[in-house]
Protein backbone atom coordinates (compact mmCIF):
# COMPACT_ATOMS: atom_id res chain seq x y z
CA UNK A 1 0.00 0.00 0.00
CA UNK A 2 1.41 3.43 -0.79
CA UNK A 3 2.53 5.52 2.14
CA UNK A 4 -0.33 7.94 1.61
CA UNK A 5 -3.12 5.35 1.72
CA UNK A 6 -1.48 3.61 4.69
CA UNK A 7 -1.56 6.86 6.62
CA UNK A 8 -5.23 7.46 5.82
CA UNK A 9 -6.09 3.89 6.70
CA UNK A 10 -4.26 4.14 10.05
CA UNK A 11 -6.30 7.19 11.08
CA UNK A 12 -9.57 5.64 9.88
CA UNK A 13 -8.76 2.35 11.67
CA UNK A 14 -7.97 4.20 14.89
CA UNK A 15 -11.28 6.09 14.73
CA UNK A 16 -13.21 2.89 14.01
CA UNK A 17 -11.56 1.01 16.87
CA UNK A 18 -12.25 3.86 19.31
CA UNK A 19 -15.83 3.88 18.12
CA UNK A 20 -16.22 0.11 18.45
CA UNK A 21 -14.86 0.08 21.99
CA UNK A 22 -16.54 3.19 23.37
CA UNK A 23 -19.66 3.20 21.14
CA UNK A 24 -20.31 6.75 22.37
CA UNK A 25 -20.47 8.49 19.02
CA UNK A 26 -22.53 5.92 17.12
CA UNK A 27 -24.99 5.40 19.97
CA UNK A 28 -25.45 9.10 20.60
CA UNK A 29 -25.83 9.93 16.91
CA UNK A 30 -28.30 7.12 16.25
CA UNK A 31 -30.32 8.16 19.28
CA UNK A 32 -30.21 11.80 18.21
CA UNK A 33 -31.42 10.86 14.72
CA UNK A 34 -34.43 9.00 16.10
CA UNK A 35 -35.14 11.87 18.46
CA UNK A 36 -35.18 14.20 15.46
CA UNK A 37 -37.75 11.92 13.81
CA UNK A 38 -40.00 12.37 16.82
CA UNK A 39 -39.52 16.13 16.77
CA UNK A 40 -40.24 16.39 13.03
CA UNK A 41 -43.36 14.29 13.50
CA UNK A 42 -44.56 16.40 16.42
CA UNK A 43 -43.76 19.65 14.60
CA UNK A 44 -45.47 18.67 11.34
CA UNK A 45 -48.45 16.84 12.80
CA UNK A 46 -49.83 13.41 11.94
CA UNK A 47 -50.70 14.25 8.33
CA UNK A 48 -48.81 11.65 6.28
CA UNK A 49 -49.04 13.58 3.01
CA UNK A 50 -47.33 16.53 4.58
CA UNK A 51 -44.45 14.49 5.93
CA UNK A 52 -44.09 12.62 2.66
CA UNK A 53 -43.84 15.83 0.63
CA UNK A 54 -41.19 17.23 2.95
CA UNK A 55 -39.31 13.95 3.40
CA UNK A 56 -36.20 14.68 1.30
CA UNK A 57 -35.68 17.99 3.11
CA UNK A 58 -36.21 16.36 6.50
CA UNK A 59 -33.65 13.67 5.71
CA UNK A 60 -30.95 16.19 4.93
CA UNK A 61 -31.82 18.54 7.77
CA UNK A 62 -31.38 15.59 10.12
CA UNK A 63 -28.14 14.48 8.44
CA UNK A 64 -26.62 17.95 8.60
CA UNK A 65 -27.61 18.55 12.23
CA UNK A 66 -26.39 15.14 13.37
CA UNK A 67 -23.30 15.56 11.18
CA UNK A 68 -22.31 18.76 12.98
CA UNK A 69 -22.50 16.87 16.27
CA UNK A 70 -20.52 13.95 14.85
CA UNK A 71 -17.77 16.24 13.56
CA UNK A 72 -17.51 18.05 16.87
CA UNK A 73 -17.12 14.71 18.64
CA UNK A 74 -14.58 13.40 16.19
CA UNK A 75 -12.22 16.23 17.08
CA UNK A 76 -13.19 16.43 20.75
CA UNK A 77 -11.66 12.96 20.95
CA UNK A 78 -8.42 14.18 19.41
CA UNK A 79 -8.28 17.20 21.67
CA UNK A 80 -9.02 15.52 25.00
CA UNK A 81 -6.17 13.02 24.83
CA UNK A 82 -3.77 15.41 23.09
CA UNK A 83 -4.02 13.18 20.03
CA UNK A 84 -3.88 16.29 17.87
CA UNK A 85 -0.27 16.79 18.90
CA UNK A 86 0.51 13.26 17.80
CA UNK A 87 -1.15 13.90 14.46
CA UNK A 88 0.90 17.07 14.03
CA UNK A 89 4.08 15.20 14.90
CA UNK A 90 3.36 12.38 12.45
CA UNK A 91 6.03 12.78 9.77
CA UNK A 92 5.31 13.38 6.11
CA UNK A 93 2.29 14.57 4.25
CA UNK A 94 -0.83 15.49 6.23
CA UNK A 95 -3.23 14.89 3.32
CA UNK A 96 -3.47 11.21 4.28
CA UNK A 97 -4.47 12.10 7.85
CA UNK A 98 -7.16 14.36 6.46
CA UNK A 99 -8.55 11.62 4.22
CA UNK A 100 -8.62 9.27 7.20
CA UNK A 101 -10.63 11.75 9.28
CA UNK A 102 -13.02 12.41 6.37
CA UNK A 103 -13.50 8.67 5.92
CA UNK A 104 -14.11 8.18 9.65
CA UNK A 105 -16.72 10.92 9.79
CA UNK A 106 -18.36 9.63 6.60
CA UNK A 107 -18.55 6.11 8.03
CA UNK A 108 -20.05 7.31 11.30
CA UNK A 109 -22.58 9.53 9.53
CA UNK A 110 -23.55 6.83 7.03
CA UNK A 111 -24.31 4.49 9.92
CA UNK A 112 -26.53 7.15 11.46
CA UNK A 113 -28.18 7.80 8.08
CA UNK A 114 -29.08 4.13 7.63
CA UNK A 115 -30.67 4.11 11.08
CA UNK A 116 -32.55 7.28 10.23
CA UNK A 117 -33.85 6.01 6.89
CA UNK A 118 -34.97 2.67 8.35
CA UNK A 119 -36.57 4.34 11.36
CA UNK A 120 -38.37 6.78 9.05
CA UNK A 121 -39.81 3.92 7.04
CA UNK A 122 -40.97 2.11 10.16
CA UNK A 123 -42.18 4.97 12.33
CA UNK A 124 -43.85 7.02 9.60
CA UNK A 125 -45.14 3.83 7.96
CA UNK A 126 -43.78 4.77 4.53
CA UNK A 127 -42.98 2.30 1.81
CA UNK A 128 -39.51 3.54 0.84
CA UNK A 129 -37.68 0.21 0.84
CA UNK A 130 -37.39 0.03 -2.95
CA UNK A 131 -35.62 3.40 -2.94
CA UNK A 132 -33.09 2.50 -0.22
CA UNK A 133 -30.13 1.53 -2.47
CA UNK A 134 -30.40 4.78 -4.41
CA UNK A 135 -30.92 6.76 -1.22
CA UNK A 136 -27.68 5.33 0.13
CA UNK A 137 -25.77 6.34 -3.00
CA UNK A 138 -27.01 9.93 -2.61
CA UNK A 139 -26.33 9.81 1.12
CA UNK A 140 -22.76 8.67 0.47
CA UNK A 141 -21.87 11.46 -1.96
CA UNK A 142 -23.66 14.12 0.06
CA UNK A 143 -21.95 12.97 3.24
CA UNK A 144 -18.50 12.98 1.63
CA UNK A 145 -18.98 16.61 0.58
CA UNK A 146 -20.22 17.57 4.02
CA UNK A 147 -17.39 15.71 5.76
CA UNK A 148 -14.76 17.16 3.40
CA UNK A 149 -15.55 20.76 4.39
CA UNK A 150 -16.60 19.79 7.91
CA UNK A 151 -13.35 18.04 8.84
CA UNK A 152 -11.38 21.14 7.94
CA UNK A 153 -13.53 23.40 10.11
CA UNK A 154 -13.92 20.92 12.95
CA UNK A 155 -10.12 20.77 13.17
CA UNK A 156 -10.04 24.57 13.37
CA UNK A 157 -12.85 25.09 15.85
CA UNK A 158 -11.66 22.24 18.10
CA UNK A 159 -8.99 24.68 19.29
CA UNK A 160 -11.37 27.56 20.00
CA UNK A 161 -13.42 28.41 23.04
CA UNK A 162 -16.92 28.76 21.55
CA UNK A 163 -16.43 25.73 19.27
CA UNK A 164 -19.95 24.30 19.60
CA UNK A 165 -21.48 27.47 18.20
CA UNK A 166 -18.75 28.35 15.72
CA UNK A 167 -18.58 25.06 13.81
CA UNK A 168 -22.15 25.25 12.41
CA UNK A 169 -21.80 28.99 11.80
CA UNK A 170 -18.81 28.49 9.49
CA UNK A 171 -19.84 25.16 8.05
CA UNK A 172 -23.53 25.35 7.20
CA UNK A 173 -23.45 28.24 4.68
CA UNK A 174 -20.55 26.57 2.86
CA UNK A 175 -22.38 23.26 2.41
CA UNK A 176 -25.57 24.77 0.98
CA UNK A 177 -24.74 23.35 -2.50
CA UNK A 178 -24.56 19.86 -0.94
CA UNK A 179 -27.93 20.42 0.70
CA UNK A 180 -29.59 21.62 -2.52
CA UNK A 181 -28.14 18.86 -4.69
CA UNK A 182 -28.68 16.06 -2.17
CA UNK A 183 -32.29 17.07 -1.45
CA UNK A 184 -33.08 17.18 -5.16
CA UNK A 185 -31.43 13.78 -5.76
CA UNK A 186 -33.13 12.29 -2.71
CA UNK A 187 -36.48 13.46 -4.08
CA UNK A 188 -35.66 11.76 -7.37
CA UNK A 189 -34.67 8.56 -5.55
CA UNK A 190 -37.84 8.54 -3.43
CA UNK A 191 -40.04 9.15 -6.47
CA UNK A 192 -38.22 6.44 -8.43
CA UNK A 193 -37.32 8.85 -11.23
CA UNK A 194 -34.34 7.97 -13.44
CA UNK A 195 -31.06 9.73 -12.61
CA UNK A 196 -30.87 11.19 -16.13
CA UNK A 197 -33.38 13.89 -15.14
CA UNK A 198 -31.04 15.10 -12.41
CA UNK A 199 -27.70 14.70 -14.19
CA UNK A 200 -26.72 18.33 -13.54
CA UNK A 201 -27.20 17.84 -9.80
CA UNK A 202 -25.00 14.76 -9.87
CA UNK A 203 -22.28 16.74 -11.60
CA UNK A 204 -22.61 19.48 -9.03
CA UNK A 205 -22.52 17.12 -6.05
CA UNK A 206 -19.59 15.02 -7.28
CA UNK A 207 -17.79 18.18 -8.39
CA UNK A 208 -18.25 19.65 -4.92
CA UNK A 209 -16.85 16.47 -3.35
CA UNK A 210 -13.78 16.48 -5.60
CA UNK A 211 -13.05 20.22 -5.21
CA UNK A 212 -13.28 20.20 -1.43
CA UNK A 213 -11.54 16.88 -0.79
CA UNK A 214 -8.59 18.20 -2.81
CA UNK A 215 -8.74 21.63 -1.14
CA UNK A 216 -8.91 19.94 2.26
CA UNK A 217 -5.93 17.71 1.54
CA UNK A 218 -3.89 20.72 0.52
CA UNK A 219 -4.83 22.96 3.44
CA UNK A 220 -5.24 20.49 6.33
CA UNK A 221 -1.54 20.65 7.10
CA UNK A 222 -1.75 24.39 7.75
CA UNK A 223 -4.76 23.96 10.02
CA UNK A 224 -3.10 21.22 12.08
CA UNK A 225 0.16 23.07 12.50
CA UNK A 226 -1.31 26.49 13.28
Amino acid at each position, binding site marked *: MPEFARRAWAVLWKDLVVERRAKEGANALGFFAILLLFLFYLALGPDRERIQSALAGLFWLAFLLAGVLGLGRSFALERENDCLDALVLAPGDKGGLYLGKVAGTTALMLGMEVVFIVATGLLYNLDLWAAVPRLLVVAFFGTVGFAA*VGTLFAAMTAQ*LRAREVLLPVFLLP*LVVPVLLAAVRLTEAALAGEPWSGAAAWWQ*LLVGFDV*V*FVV*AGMLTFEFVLEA
Partner: protein
Amino acid sequence: MGRALGPLSALLVLAGIAAAFGYAPRDAIQGNVQRIMYLHVPAILTAYVAIGVVLVASIAYLWSRRPDWDRTAAAAGELAVCFIALTLVTGSIWGKPTWGTWWTWDARLTSTALLFVIYLGYLLLRSVVDDPERGATYAAVLGIVGALDVPIIHFSVQWWRTLHQPATVLRPQAPTMDGAMLVALVLNVAAFVCLFAYLAARRYRLLTLEAQATARAWQ
Protein backbone atom coordinates in the same frame (compact mmCIF):
# COMPACT_ATOMS: atom_id res chain seq x y z
CA MET B 1 0.23 55.59 -4.05
CA GLY B 2 -2.39 55.17 -1.34
CA ARG B 3 -2.61 58.94 -1.00
CA ALA B 4 -3.26 59.57 -4.67
CA LEU B 5 -6.08 57.03 -4.65
CA GLY B 6 -8.12 59.11 -2.18
CA PRO B 7 -8.71 62.23 -4.31
CA LEU B 8 -9.01 60.06 -7.41
CA SER B 9 -11.80 57.95 -5.84
CA ALA B 10 -13.58 61.09 -4.61
CA LEU B 11 -13.41 62.55 -8.11
CA LEU B 12 -14.62 59.34 -9.75
CA VAL B 13 -17.47 58.85 -7.26
CA LEU B 14 -18.66 62.42 -7.82
CA ALA B 15 -18.41 61.99 -11.59
CA GLY B 16 -20.24 58.67 -11.27
CA ILE B 17 -23.10 60.25 -9.31
CA ALA B 18 -23.31 63.09 -11.81
CA ALA B 19 -23.40 60.64 -14.71
CA ALA B 20 -25.99 58.42 -13.01
CA PHE B 21 -28.35 61.34 -12.39
CA GLY B 22 -27.49 63.81 -15.13
CA TYR B 23 -26.06 62.02 -18.13
CA ALA B 24 -27.83 58.65 -18.17
CA PRO B 25 -31.43 58.82 -19.48
CA ARG B 26 -34.48 57.80 -17.46
CA ASP B 27 -35.39 54.17 -17.88
CA ALA B 28 -38.36 53.84 -20.23
CA ILE B 29 -40.18 51.29 -18.08
CA GLN B 30 -38.85 51.50 -14.55
CA GLY B 31 -38.39 55.28 -14.39
CA ASN B 32 -35.96 56.86 -11.95
CA VAL B 33 -35.93 53.80 -9.69
CA GLN B 34 -33.67 52.14 -12.22
CA ARG B 35 -30.89 54.62 -11.38
CA ILE B 36 -30.14 52.63 -8.24
CA MET B 37 -28.48 50.18 -10.61
CA TYR B 38 -25.51 52.58 -10.85
CA LEU B 39 -24.89 51.78 -7.18
CA HIS B 40 -26.10 48.19 -7.07
CA VAL B 41 -24.11 46.65 -9.93
CA PRO B 42 -20.76 48.35 -9.15
CA ALA B 43 -21.16 47.28 -5.51
CA ILE B 44 -21.49 43.58 -6.30
CA LEU B 45 -18.75 43.66 -8.93
CA THR B 46 -16.43 45.33 -6.42
CA ALA B 47 -17.41 42.71 -3.84
CA TYR B 48 -16.31 40.00 -6.29
CA VAL B 49 -13.02 41.85 -6.77
CA ALA B 50 -12.61 41.94 -2.98
CA ILE B 51 -13.34 38.20 -2.71
CA GLY B 52 -10.74 37.57 -5.41
CA VAL B 53 -8.20 39.63 -3.47
CA VAL B 54 -8.97 37.62 -0.32
CA LEU B 55 -8.39 34.39 -2.27
CA VAL B 56 -5.08 35.49 -3.78
CA ALA B 57 -3.80 37.00 -0.52
CA SER B 58 -4.84 33.87 1.42
CA ILE B 59 -2.94 31.55 -0.91
CA ALA B 60 0.05 33.91 -0.82
CA TYR B 61 -0.05 33.96 2.99
CA LEU B 62 -0.07 30.16 3.33
CA TRP B 63 2.72 30.03 0.78
CA SER B 64 5.00 32.69 2.21
CA ARG B 65 3.83 33.14 5.84
CA ARG B 66 4.32 36.86 5.46
CA PRO B 67 1.97 38.90 7.68
CA ASP B 68 1.52 41.59 5.03
CA TRP B 69 -0.48 39.10 2.93
CA ASP B 70 -2.65 38.38 5.95
CA ARG B 71 -3.31 42.09 6.39
CA THR B 72 -4.20 42.39 2.72
CA ALA B 73 -6.71 39.54 3.10
CA ALA B 74 -8.13 41.07 6.28
CA ALA B 75 -8.62 44.49 4.67
CA ALA B 76 -10.20 43.00 1.53
CA GLY B 77 -12.42 40.67 3.59
CA GLU B 78 -13.90 43.55 5.57
CA LEU B 79 -14.57 45.49 2.38
CA ALA B 80 -16.13 42.41 0.75
CA VAL B 81 -18.69 42.31 3.57
CA CYS B 82 -19.32 46.07 3.21
CA PHE B 83 -19.90 45.89 -0.54
CA ILE B 84 -22.09 42.77 -0.32
CA ALA B 85 -24.16 44.52 2.35
CA LEU B 86 -24.45 47.57 0.08
CA THR B 87 -25.61 45.29 -2.75
CA LEU B 88 -28.26 43.67 -0.57
CA VAL B 89 -29.53 47.02 0.75
CA THR B 90 -29.69 48.76 -2.63
CA GLY B 91 -31.28 45.65 -4.14
CA SER B 92 -33.93 45.68 -1.45
CA ILE B 93 -34.68 49.36 -2.00
CA TRP B 94 -35.00 48.71 -5.73
CA GLY B 95 -37.03 45.53 -5.23
CA LYS B 96 -39.77 47.17 -3.17
CA PRO B 97 -41.14 49.47 -5.91
CA THR B 98 -40.21 47.11 -8.80
CA TRP B 99 -41.10 43.64 -7.57
CA GLY B 100 -43.37 44.83 -4.77
CA THR B 101 -41.34 43.17 -2.02
CA TRP B 102 -38.23 43.92 0.01
CA TRP B 103 -37.01 40.36 -0.18
CA THR B 104 -37.72 37.30 -2.25
CA TRP B 105 -36.00 33.91 -2.38
CA ASP B 106 -34.79 34.43 -5.90
CA ALA B 107 -31.55 32.73 -6.96
CA ARG B 108 -29.33 35.80 -7.04
CA LEU B 109 -30.67 37.22 -3.82
CA THR B 110 -30.20 33.90 -2.09
CA SER B 111 -26.66 33.34 -3.30
CA THR B 112 -25.68 36.92 -2.45
CA ALA B 113 -27.15 36.50 1.02
CA LEU B 114 -25.12 33.29 1.41
CA LEU B 115 -21.97 35.14 0.37
CA PHE B 116 -22.77 37.75 2.99
CA VAL B 117 -23.11 35.08 5.69
CA ILE B 118 -19.90 33.30 4.62
CA TYR B 119 -17.78 36.45 4.68
CA LEU B 120 -19.39 37.63 7.88
CA GLY B 121 -18.22 34.27 9.24
CA TYR B 122 -14.78 35.08 7.85
CA LEU B 123 -14.66 38.26 9.94
CA LEU B 124 -16.00 36.35 12.94
CA LEU B 125 -13.26 33.74 12.59
CA ARG B 126 -10.66 36.50 12.54
CA SER B 127 -12.05 37.96 15.75
CA VAL B 128 -12.39 34.76 17.81
CA VAL B 129 -8.85 33.40 17.52
CA ASP B 130 -6.51 34.87 20.13
CA ASP B 131 -3.20 33.80 18.64
CA PRO B 132 -2.60 36.13 15.66
CA GLU B 133 -0.63 33.62 13.61
CA ARG B 134 -3.17 30.87 14.12
CA GLY B 135 -5.97 33.32 13.33
CA ALA B 136 -4.25 34.32 10.10
CA THR B 137 -3.85 30.68 9.03
CA TYR B 138 -7.45 29.75 9.80
CA ALA B 139 -8.71 32.86 8.03
CA ALA B 140 -6.57 32.03 5.00
CA VAL B 141 -8.07 28.53 4.80
CA LEU B 142 -11.59 29.93 5.06
CA GLY B 143 -10.69 32.60 2.49
CA ILE B 144 -9.68 29.87 0.03
CA VAL B 145 -12.55 27.48 0.75
CA GLY B 146 -15.09 30.34 0.65
CA ALA B 147 -13.87 31.62 -2.70
CA LEU B 148 -13.92 28.08 -4.17
CA ASP B 149 -17.50 27.78 -2.99
CA VAL B 150 -18.66 31.02 -4.64
CA PRO B 151 -19.14 29.60 -8.18
CA ILE B 152 -20.61 26.33 -6.86
CA ILE B 153 -23.13 28.21 -4.73
CA HIS B 154 -23.92 30.44 -7.69
CA PHE B 155 -24.82 27.52 -9.97
CA SER B 156 -26.58 25.42 -7.36
CA VAL B 157 -28.85 28.26 -6.33
CA GLN B 158 -29.35 29.23 -9.97
CA TRP B 159 -30.72 25.78 -10.79
CA TRP B 160 -32.72 25.78 -7.62
CA ARG B 161 -34.79 28.75 -8.84
CA THR B 162 -34.53 32.05 -10.62
CA LEU B 163 -36.62 35.15 -11.19
CA HIS B 164 -33.92 37.81 -11.32
CA GLN B 165 -33.43 39.56 -14.63
CA PRO B 166 -30.48 37.98 -16.46
CA ALA B 167 -27.14 39.79 -16.44
CA THR B 168 -27.02 42.53 -19.08
CA VAL B 169 -23.36 43.52 -19.09
CA LEU B 170 -21.28 40.49 -18.12
CA ARG B 171 -22.58 37.98 -20.61
CA PRO B 172 -21.37 36.42 -23.85
CA GLN B 173 -23.37 38.62 -26.25
CA ALA B 174 -23.18 42.40 -26.57
CA PRO B 175 -24.82 44.33 -23.69
CA THR B 176 -28.48 45.26 -24.21
CA MET B 177 -28.29 48.70 -22.74
CA ASP B 178 -28.42 52.27 -23.90
CA GLY B 179 -24.94 53.65 -24.62
CA ALA B 180 -25.24 56.53 -22.14
CA MET B 181 -26.42 54.15 -19.42
CA LEU B 182 -23.46 51.89 -20.09
CA VAL B 183 -21.04 54.82 -19.86
CA ALA B 184 -22.52 55.85 -16.51
CA LEU B 185 -22.36 52.28 -15.27
CA VAL B 186 -18.75 51.72 -16.31
CA LEU B 187 -17.79 55.06 -14.73
CA ASN B 188 -19.39 53.97 -11.47
CA VAL B 189 -17.70 50.57 -11.57
CA ALA B 190 -14.34 52.34 -12.00
CA ALA B 191 -15.20 54.66 -9.11
CA PHE B 192 -16.12 51.76 -6.81
CA VAL B 193 -13.06 49.69 -7.63
CA CYS B 194 -10.88 52.74 -7.05
CA LEU B 195 -12.67 53.43 -3.77
CA PHE B 196 -12.11 49.81 -2.78
CA ALA B 197 -8.40 50.06 -3.53
CA TYR B 198 -8.16 53.27 -1.50
CA LEU B 199 -10.06 51.90 1.52
CA ALA B 200 -8.12 48.62 1.39
CA ALA B 201 -4.83 50.53 1.33
CA ARG B 202 -5.89 52.65 4.32
CA ARG B 203 -7.08 49.60 6.27
CA TYR B 204 -3.86 47.79 5.44
CA ARG B 205 -1.85 50.73 6.75
CA LEU B 206 -3.89 50.80 9.96
CA LEU B 207 -3.39 47.06 10.51
CA THR B 208 0.35 47.47 9.98
CA LEU B 209 0.51 50.30 12.52
CA GLU B 210 -1.51 48.23 15.01
CA ALA B 211 0.87 45.29 14.59
CA GLN B 212 3.86 47.60 15.09
CA ALA B 213 2.32 49.14 18.21
CA THR B 214 1.61 45.67 19.65
CA ALA B 215 5.14 44.55 18.90
CA ARG B 216 6.53 47.67 20.62
CA ALA B 217 4.33 47.15 23.67
CA TRP B 218 5.79 43.66 24.12
CA GLN B 219 9.37 44.87 24.04
